[in-house]
């Protein structure tokens, strides 16, 4: 059946795809091509550097470890995230939304800070179980970061599933587990696929966590790219490694696209049918179990961070928070933390705005599920899995003249941040757009709304509120963004992550305390923003 009917949906979709594609070409494809061509152009051949990289036993080991830890992290994140998503999307209880918003907080914390918190935690656990400098420590940190991706993506779909088929399966003699495996799980597959793809991309390009927690012998492709670029100025190797990384990312997206296509465009139930008030000891146990799990993987490291921010000398106090009002020194680069907070908010808002415009256009263009739409959707995911070092260098090469040179470089910060946020906007909006009941549009038409009016009265209000949810995600992603920021920022107006980084660049308890207090502040701001945005909902489709 023709989706657009007589409204010319195809033409509109194509026009809407132009914006995102130009954005992607300008701020991703072009810079990346510049770096790669520069690196691979050294001896004119693409294959020679690739072969060198692929035959180097050390890099082989790195590639194996990178892939292995990413797969293991993805699996572990799903294992932890699924039960949490299950409870949060089937049981309603006091504090559910706060917990859901809180799971996203780790997402915005700088790696160094998380590393510090983890080291503190693992140090205390050492007498019981010594996880220091193990691969498991890396995996746990990855779970800590990414569990919210699973909770939000899978949970969003889950609570829109009609509960009836599960009940039917139960009456047909299926145990809870079998009903889940045979009825619920297949219907969740598109969301699980999406979440797994995003987590894989994040962990595949993981950098700081690997070295701070992994100890000797554990390096990822991203570390090697950083090393080749920043230290060795060996663009040939860096480019070859980046190509390798990109190929892996494209392959991942290919697999993801296959799982998604098979389950595409399945309309959501129009009410949050699977969410019911918690009652009885069984529910209470499920909630307690979920909270225990979250406490273990997210709560403990966050508490360790909070504890460090409150530790003053041998006691505890709010001194570090009080010190945030003023810079440590009257120096050019030592901006007051309050200013850094303001900068962060401004950058994040600008990036969110850009990501929203680009992401919304992309989601609208992709909603028809056409081949071109799917390709664009996949292409927009690429920045998530691309080396921040390579991309940063490419942006530098691409924009060192023109509007983004000099003071204009500051414009690059939100643009680079938006690159990372766009996939989240698309992921958040697309299911809502696809889930809009076609008959709502038809009802509006029979009530006298012309096609344009239908778009304005039906699609736009529903999408724009879903868009606010997407904006919250984009905000959270950008407010803590560090990799791209540090690479393209050049003016003396640091964001909070940059300020944390600077504070952690000098010895001294005060510096550490400030960094930790700033991290807690960043976490609070993010949590509050997400919670605020999560409260905006529209009927049955507002929350995804």
């Amino acid at each position: 059946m023709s989706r657009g009917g007589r409204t010319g949906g195809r033409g509109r979709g194509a026009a809407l795809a132009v914006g995102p594609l130009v954005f992607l070409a300008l701020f991703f494809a072009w810079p990346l091509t510049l770096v790669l061509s520069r690196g691979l152009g050294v001896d004119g051949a693409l294959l020679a550097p690739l072969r060198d990289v692929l035959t180097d036993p050390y890099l082989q080991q790195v590639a194996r470890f990178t892939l292995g830890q990413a797969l293991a992290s993805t699996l572990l994140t799903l294992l932890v995230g699924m039960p949490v998503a299950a409870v949060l999307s089937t049981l309603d209880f006091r504090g559910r939304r706060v917990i859901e918003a809180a799971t996203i907080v780790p997402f915005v914390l700088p790696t160094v800070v998380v590393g510090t918190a983890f080291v503190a935690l693992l140090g205390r656990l050492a007498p019981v179980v010594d996880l220091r400098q193990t691969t498991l420590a890396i995996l746990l940190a990855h779970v800590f970061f990414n569990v919210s991706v699973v909770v939000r993506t899978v949970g969003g779909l889950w609570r829109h599933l009609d509960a009836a088929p599960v009940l039917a399966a139960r009456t047909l003699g299926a145990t809870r587990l079998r009903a889940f495996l045979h009825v619920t799980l297949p219907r969740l597959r598109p969301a699980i696929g999406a979440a797994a793809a995003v987590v894989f991309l994040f962990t595949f390009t993981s950098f700081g966590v690997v070295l701070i927690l992994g100890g000797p012998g554990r390096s990822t492709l991203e570390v090697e790219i950083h090393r080749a670029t920043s230290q060795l100025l060996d663009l040939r190797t860096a480019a070859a490694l980046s190509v390798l990384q990109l190929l892996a990312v494209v392959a991942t997206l290919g697999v993801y696209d296959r799982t998604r296509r098979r389950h595409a465009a399945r309309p959501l139930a129009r009410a949050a049918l699977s969410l019911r008030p918690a009652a009885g000891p069984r529910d209470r146990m499920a909630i307690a179990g979920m909270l225990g799990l979250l406490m273990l993987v997210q709560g403990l490291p966050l508490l360790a961070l909070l504890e460090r921010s409150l530790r003053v000398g041998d006691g505890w106090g709010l001194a570090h928070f009080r010190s945030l009002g003023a810079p440590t020194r009257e120096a050019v680069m030592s901006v007051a933390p309050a200013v850094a907070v303001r900068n962060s908010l401004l950058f994040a808002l600008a990036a969110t705005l850009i990501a929203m415009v680009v992401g919304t256009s992309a989601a609208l263009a992709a909603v028809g599920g056409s081949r071109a739409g799917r390709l664009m959707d996949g292409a927009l995911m690429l920045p998530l899995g691309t080396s921040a070092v390579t991309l940063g260098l490419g942006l530098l090469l691409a924009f060192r003249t023109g509007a983004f040179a000099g003071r204009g470089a500051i414009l690059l910060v939100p643009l680079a941040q938006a690159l990372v946020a766009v996939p989240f906007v698309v992921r958040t909006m697309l299911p809502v757009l696809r889930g809009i009941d076609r008959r709502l549009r038809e009802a509006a038409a029979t009530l006298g709304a012309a096609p344009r009016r239908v778009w304005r009265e039906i699609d736009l209000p529903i999408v724009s509120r879903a868009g606010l949810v997407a904006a919250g995600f984009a905000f959270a992603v950008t407010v803590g963004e560090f990799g791209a920021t540090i690479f393209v920022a050049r003016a003396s107006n640091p964001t909070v992550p940059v300020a944390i980084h600077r504070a952690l660049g000098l010895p001294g308890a005060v510096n550490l305390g400030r960094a930790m207090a700033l991290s807690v502040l960043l976490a609070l701001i993010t949590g509050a923003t997400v919670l605020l945005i999560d409260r905006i909902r529209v009927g049955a489709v507002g929350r995804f």
Partner: protein
Amino acid sequence: MGLLEVAGLRAGYGDGPDVLSDVHLDVRSGEVVALLGASGSGKSTLLRCIAGLHPLRSGDVTLDGRDLRRVSVEQRGIGLVFQDHALFPHHDVTGNVAFGPRMQGLDRAETAARVARALADVGLGHLAHRAIDELSGGEQQRVALARALATRPRLLLLDEPYGSLDRPLRERLVDELPGLVRGEDIGALLVTHDQQEALRAADRVAVMVAGTVRQLDTPERLWADPVDAEVAAFLGVGVLLDAEMHGGVASGAFGALTLPPPLRTSSAAGGDGPARLLLPRRALRAIAAPGGPDAAGDRAAAGATLTATLVEVRFAGERHRIDLVLGDGTRLTLLSDDVSGLPSPGAAVTLAVDVDALRVFPPGQ
């Protein structure tokens, strides 16, 4: 002249075969027409064609004499009540009902008046500012109806609007429909697969079979004179038997019946040869056990009769259900006030047949 006239309508999906073919239909002002058919018979598609949500391959649709083929959906002046209501989740009750008047460009005061009136008509004035997901199913259905009525449509289309509601509520809402339509002097086309619903609400019933309207008539005429075997079967008027026609007598394994003169001439299978014989339930009466071989005189006195085997008699509230098997193995259920004199199960029963009510159709349907 009809308010809505559909003639020779053909429609389908993509490059596929026709889903609707040669559909003829009319709805008069102040009238409720029920569109009755099995699922998959094309009822909803026909409704969408009339509303302008689905393209025609050919045929005419006119409303008040105006050719609708060139009129886009939003300008047709047709109200459509969707299955499952399709209420706007981002508007409350008032927002939903006010949508149409707003689209028509009415000012605030007039819109408010329309909303108030429409909500009052469906008895929901007290829920004006309720959110949609806080309404019960019945309330949602009423909002959907009010929303469609608030545009003052000339024609109201209802697509299985009561499908998801429980029976008492459904019956109440169905009963309210004719009043709403007659009061507004508009026409309504109600899609349903439920005969009871059609009978309760409709002035006329259109029976759809396999993508076309086979018969459009008052319920009485429809039941008395189904146009073909499929319509008869769909309506459940009675049982259809394979018979051999010979000189005005229909015979088969069930027995033999002599048809009255009008049927011999007007029937589609007027000639001799194989045919389908419709035995309407209301033409039958179980009278008693047949007598011995010399009881032929009694049979003649009772008019035409058939012999059947009694399977079971059950009390079904107010009346009794009598389950029988005819001589050719066809099962038949009759309702009767009086079961006295019937033998015990397994015994033979005589059925008195009102031959004027019999119908003969061509074979093979």
